[in-house]
């Protein structure tokens, strides 16, 4: 019985049907399923599948966006219950922004949406963000990861500057750093001492989870 409902939930996310996703969530909760299992057994397999389909080129950008929107709507529906149950849907805290001198935000916003759909709490610094502003935000908040976007070859060096400033402010060990954007490569990410690079929104989510897990392992080892 619940399996069939989970499948419907998964399908609603894959097909990007936000109204269905919301009504199936309600139905599941009325039938006594926990919000946590609705999320983990119904919704998450859906968004993971969407990511897979996108990464193999089967799904196109708009489909990723529609599914992300459906996921956000479903999570918003469940959130009060998740929090009440003490099992909040919280993957981690992510700080994001486009580097200084660069005002591109489409890619950054897509990454943000996918992160939110996967349970990340995202704080957006916006575009044209100076190293000072980045450092202030890192110092103030308790973020797991800072991700920056650079869409132009001329603004890529600003990602380097930002990391230098974070180091200089003594904040480098506070979080992991990711970079992305059309001209950015893994090689560049390594060169400037970032912890991770992702070529698209799907990879960004995976990378965020793997960096978060790495941090946990390091903490356990320490």
């Amino acid at each position, binding site marked *: 019985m619940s399996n069939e409902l989970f499948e419907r939930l998964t399908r609603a996310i894959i097909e990007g049907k936000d109204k269905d996703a919301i009504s199936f969530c309600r139905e599941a909760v009325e039938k006594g399923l926990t919000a946590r299992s609705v999320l983990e057994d119904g919704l998450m397999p859906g968004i993971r599948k969407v990511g897979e389909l996108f990464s193999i080129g089967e799904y196109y*950008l708009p489909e990723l966006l529609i599914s992300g929107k459906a996921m956000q709507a479903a999570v918003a529906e469940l959130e009060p219950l998740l929090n009440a149950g003490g099992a909040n849907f919280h993957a981690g805290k992510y700080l994001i922004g486009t580097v200084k001198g660069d*005002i591109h935000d489409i890619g950054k916003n897509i990454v943000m949406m996918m992160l939110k759909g996967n349970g990340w709490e995202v704080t957006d610094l916006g575009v044209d963000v100076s190293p000072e502003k980045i450092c202030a935000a890192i110092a103030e908040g308790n973020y797991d990861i800072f991700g920056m976007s650079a869409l132009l070859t001329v603004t*890529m*060096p600003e990602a380097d500057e930002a990391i230098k400033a974070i180091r200089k402010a003594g904040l480098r060990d506070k979080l992991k750093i990711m970079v992305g954007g059309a001209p950015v490569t893994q090689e560049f990410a390594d060169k400037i001492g970032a912890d991770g690079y992702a070529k698209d929104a799907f990879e960004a989510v995976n990378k965020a989870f793997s960096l978060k897990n790495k941090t946990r392992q390091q903490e356990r080892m320490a």
Partner: protein
Amino acid sequence: MIIIGEKINSSRRQIADAIASGNREYIQNEAKAQRDAGADYIDLNAAAFMEKEADYLKWIIEAVQEVTELPLCIDSPDPEVIKKVISHVKRPPMINSITLEPTRLDGILPLVIDYRATVIGLCQTRNRMGRTAAEKVEIAGRLIEKVTSSGIGIDALYIDPLVFPVGADSNSACATLDAIEEIMKQFQGVHTVCGLTNVSHGLPNRKLVNRTFLAEAVARGLDAAILDPADKQLLGALRASLMLMGKDEYCMGYIKAFRKGLLA
């Protein structure tokens, strides 16, 4: 219709390799192929090389001018780079590009005057890109004001209303098309120009989307485009659209291009 050949751009892997390895012939062949396909300007971009950009751009300018008389479109976001290379250009160039950002405006407008250049103005301020049609038109108006008040004729300005992926926002292409129409109507004498590849980002069969967008943009008054002139389907859509819009007397542009084997 002004066609600006886009292929000599360092964001393309083959071009970056040719520049880095000093492969003059490869760059020259790209220039000749675009000239033969009907380009009016050859765009030259070395921006991927950052600190070496000016030196490489100078080298490309010289290489390309050895094989074609076509004017060049000097493409860099950095006004200092443009300042360094522009004296090597033999014919009045097009400069790509200015925005409302003061350093770019102040750095480049004097060069437009000194070199009798034309210039592409992006609908972008220091901290914002024009997204809606109204924003684009408003920024275009301010660009026109800046350019003409410095003594440059309005017909030297090519407004780029900016093209965003329609796959990320279903209304974005329409905003650009509406802006083209409005800019051409409101500001007599100004030109509009745009690139095409951004529109189809994240979608299948991108070239179909690109050329359909070009045809629609031409229908709204676009009179210049940055594109690959060797793409026969794209040029086919362009020539047919110009003809249907009454911009090709006796349809001879279309017929001649067809006879040369340039259309598909």
